Each structure stands twice: as C-alpha cells, then as structure tokens.
C-alpha cells in the first residue's frame, strides 16, 4: 500500500480499525479530538459504533461494558481526561478486560496546558489508578510506529486480558507524516469464552462474571497471584526498545517518544564534532526494557548517560534503576511542554565531556 500523508490522531484511529477495533467511547479534550472525530465517521462505515460519552468516567466504563462483551474497544483522551479514567482503568485491570487507551499527553499538573508533554509517565507506568496492577504501555516516536503499534496493542490486550495504553506526547497526535497503513483483511479475532455474550444454563459456555470485587482476603490474593504471574510472562516476552549508534559510544542518550528523534539529530551533530553518542529508546515503557537499557549504557566505552524528557524527570528513575549505579545518569528536561532542540542536547553532552 502506498504511503499517505496523515495526521497522527487520524492515522492511529484508522490503524485501530484495521486492527479490528469496532467500538469507541470517548469525550472531547485537546489535543486528541481528531481521534473521536475520525471514529465518529469511520466506525459506522465498518459496522462499528462510536459513542460520545457524557464524561471520561462514563467513557471508560462503557469500554468496560463493551470489552466485557467481547468486543475490540478503545478510548482516547489527554492527560486530565486520563486522570478521570483511572477508576475505570483500575477496574478493567482487575476485571481482566482487554481494551486500548490512548493518552495524547499534554502539560500538567491540573489543567496544565495543551502542548505536548511527557508528564504522565509515572501515572501510566507506576499505576495511575489505585491498587496493585500494571498496564502494558507503548510509546511511539513516529506516526508510522504508532500505527504499527495499534495492531500489537489490541493483540496483546486480548492475549493477556489486560488494558493497554498508548502513551504518546501530543506531537504524535498533531503532526502529519507519511504513513503506510497496513490492512489486514484476514484478521481472525481470538475466541473469548469468558465474555458476556449470553449464557444458557447447562450449555457449553460458563456464566460470565466480570468483576473487580473480591471481598475475601484469599479471593483477592488469588486474583493478584494470577495477575502477577501474567505480568511476569509479559515482562519476559513483551519488552520493546530501539538502540541507535550505541556500540562503542562515549555517551548514551535515553529518551522515548518524539524526544528520541530530537536525540538522534543531536547524535548526528555530535558525530560531526567527533563525539560518538548513541541512543537507547524504550518502546514498551511497561514492561520496561531494563536489560537493554543496562547493556546499552554499561559498556566499557560509555562514560555517562543522559536522559532527556519533556518533564521534570520521570523515566530517568527507571533508567537509573536499570543502570544501578554502574554509570552516572544525568537528566535534561523541562516540564511545561518545552521540547529541547538537537543543538541544546548536543551542547549538554559537550558540557558533560568538558566535565
């Protein structure tokens, strides 16, 4: 299929449809409105249903209802709206409901601003809602990658019966890039015998009970053991990352999302000045690719690492945990949606080099 120039939000929406998503429930918030707008026109054309909910709370609970009914379903929002959805995200994690949640991050806390940001890393990766659970979290750094990720997101959501979050900075949603949208006419969706699709007593399918309440200590313990056994499998099998120019590098940049692309430009600037720098880019933020990050940074040639984020420093904590003190890891970043330039990043590395 030929490449097409598309806006990120619209490309993500179409990619979700190609991945088998037929239901979307959402509430308007900038900068992700192009997703619900696109879905409102497209989903009825493919026999699906778009519904604008009365709130983010209602939207995520509609997702619970539809995901529990066996459908491929998705919602999207941006930071303050994602905060509102946390009750339902925690519910879906506990009730083992596959679904995909897109967060086009904007600046926070509170209402923040409407520019791109990476301030929701902690919320996405460390919980967000209450209780012991994880989401699978993917962070695209281009529109093409975001599109390819949608198929993966829906597939792993079904495979592991878990909510999956696409954590994108607002730039991914708002910019336009050429993309190749993969169609999948032979897509076969997995059977979901646990879903609420109708129950006949004495029939083959068991009665569905989609629930997040386990009032007995032993019962809740059993649920958590089951979830955490599954998380261990996810951690073993689902880590995704990219390394760029890392072998024999003197400095390693760590970044995710759009910022990682700025880092690549900085690496080229540094190369022109005879400084070899590389990049390690986590693509799955949970499970976090700790070993890949460690191996990229802890090599003989590497003096120091620098994590660059559009936040006051969130992923840097996981980078430091992965490196475990074996190399210094510095942080560069500003909240308030300030995207550093390639020149600024290169200059910071040169400063580190001067000591």
């Amino acid at each position, binding site marked *: 299929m030929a490449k097409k120039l598309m806006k990120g939000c619209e490309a993500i929406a179409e990619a979700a449809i190609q991945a088998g998503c037929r239901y979307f429930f959402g509430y308007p918030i900038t900068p992700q409105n192009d997703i619900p707008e696109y879905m409102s026109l497209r989903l009825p054309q493919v026999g699906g249903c778009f*519904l604008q*909910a*009365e*709130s983010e709370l209602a939207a995520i609970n509609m997702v619970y*209802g539809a995901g529990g009914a066996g459908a491929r*379903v998705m919602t999207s929002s941006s930071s303050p709206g994602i905060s509102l959805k946390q009750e339902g995200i925690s519910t879906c994690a506990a*009730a083992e409901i596959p679904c995909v949640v897109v967060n086009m991050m904007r600046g926070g806390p509170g209402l923040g601003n409407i520019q791109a940001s990476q301030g929701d890393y902690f919320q996405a990766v460390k919980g967000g809602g209450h209780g012991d659970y994880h989401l699978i979290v993917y962070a695209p750094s281009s529109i093409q990658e975001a599109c390819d990720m949608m198929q993966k997101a829906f597939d792993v959501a079904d495979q592991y019966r878990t909510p999956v979050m696409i954590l994108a900075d607002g730039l991914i949603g708002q910019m336009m890039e050429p993309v190749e949208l993969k169609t999948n006419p032979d897509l076969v969706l997995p059977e979901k015998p646990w879903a609420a699709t109708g*129950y006949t007593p004495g029939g083959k399918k068991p009665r569905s009970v989609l629930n997040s309440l386990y009032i007995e200590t032993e019962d809740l313990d059993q649920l958590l053991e089951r979830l955490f056994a599954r998380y261990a499998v996810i951690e073993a099998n689902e880590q995704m990352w990219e390394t760029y120019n890392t072998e024999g590098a003197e400095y390693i940049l760590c970044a995710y999302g759009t910022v990682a692309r700025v880092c690549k430009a900085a690496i080229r600037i540094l190369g022109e000045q005879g400084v070899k720098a590389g990049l390690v880019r986590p693509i799955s933020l949970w499970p976090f690719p700790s070993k890949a990050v460690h191996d990229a940074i802890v090599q003989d040639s590497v003096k120091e690492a620098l994590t660059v984020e559009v936040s006051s420093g969130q992923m840097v904590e996981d980078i430091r945990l992965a490196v475990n003190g074996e190399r210094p890891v510095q942080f560069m970043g500003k909240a308030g949606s300030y995207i550093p330039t390639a020149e600024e990043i290169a200059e910071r590395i040169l400063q580190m080099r001067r000591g």
Partner: protein
Amino acid sequence: MTVVFKKTPVLRDVPLHYCPGCGHGIVHRMVSEVIEELGIQDKCAGVAPVGCAVFAYNYFDVDMYEAAHGRAPAVATGFKRVHPDHYIFTYQGDGDLASIGTAEIVHAAHRGEKITTIFINNAIYGMTGGQMAPTTLVGQKTTTSPLGRDKDHCGEPIRMAEMLATISGSAFIARCALNSTPNLIKTKAAIKKAFETQIARKGFSMVEILSPCPTNWGKSPAEAMDWIADAMIPYYPLGTFKEV
C-alpha cells in the same frame, strides 16, 4: 403432591446476604421471574452496583458485570452497543444512582439507551452503615444526619423518577413500593413492563422501588413496611410517570 409454587431458576441456589426484612430479596425474585417469564435468560445480562446489592452478580443466573460506584448505566451501554439484540438491566441503589451516578443515569436516559434500570430507593446508604442518601427524607436521622436531615443545610430529597420522566429518551418510568400485597403485584407488573419496553426497543426504562431497610432505619421489618406507607409514599408518589 401438587407443586403450587417454585423458585424461579433465574435466581441461583446460593444464600442471600441481605438483612432480615430487607427488600432486595423480594426485588431479586421479581426481576428473575420476569426474565424467566419473558424467556430472555440466555440473552440477558445484568450489572450489579456498589451498595447493598454489590453481590447481585452471585444471585442472578445470567451473565453479570460488577460496576464501579454509579457507573452501571455506562457499563450497560457498552454491552448493549456490542449486543443490540440482547437485553441488559442495571440494579442500583439510591447512593449509586441518585448521588455518585447521576451523570450516568441521566445520560443513559437522555440517549434513550435501550436498557432497564431497577432502582432501589430505601432513603439511606445501607452497606456503608446508614449514612444520609440524596433520597433521605427531611428530618430522617442517619449516621451523617444525626439530628435529622435539614433541608436548609443539604436540600430536600431528590425525586429521580419524576426527573427522568422529563427526558425524551425515557420510554417507561414508574415508581412502586414493596409495602403491601397490591403494591407488590404492581411492582412486578412494572418490572415486566420495563423489560418489555427494552425488548420493543422503545428507549430507556426504569422502575424506582421504595424498599425497606429495617437495619439502618432502626425499625422492625413490620414497622419498616409501615414507614414506607406513612413517610415515604407521601413524598414519593407511586405511579407511572412516563409510558411511550
């Protein structure tokens, strides 16, 4: 021996956790009987609330969801949009529906969502220990209105049936009570009508049921039934408020 009465198979053979004299058991049986009589058990699902009926997913022998507090109509909406040829009911108390879940119930009605809501109004929060509900009567003592509800401080009780009947998407809205045999018969008939409204795809349907809570009202079961007649019905008139 002739069988003159038997339990509906839609109610599962498990012990109910409700207090003596509580109305939930009566309504559970009526809802189950209606599902049986309409022959929709294999195409029906239910949504349990947060509140005393939180374990309702153990009692109805249909596919069941347990929803977060107040969100049952949104969950039911998600199910119904995926399976428009199936049926779904939400079973909610007054804290769930008339307080934390007002947005969800109003907008489910507003969309004309083809779902059925069973709304238990017992004028109090039962499960959490007898706190004031939006439906608590003026002067009624609860654990958070120990001197009696003061309307100047927290308003008068909210009348949900009347309110939802004003919404164009509502197709059947009624209020019933469990305090007498004639009212029990009317309650069962209204529940049936509500499900029939959903089957006919006319729009949103709800039956509000005035139901006793002897434990948190500090009354005997018999006194609680009398209090429905003497105190609740004068403020919450019975009847059908909307029928399309």
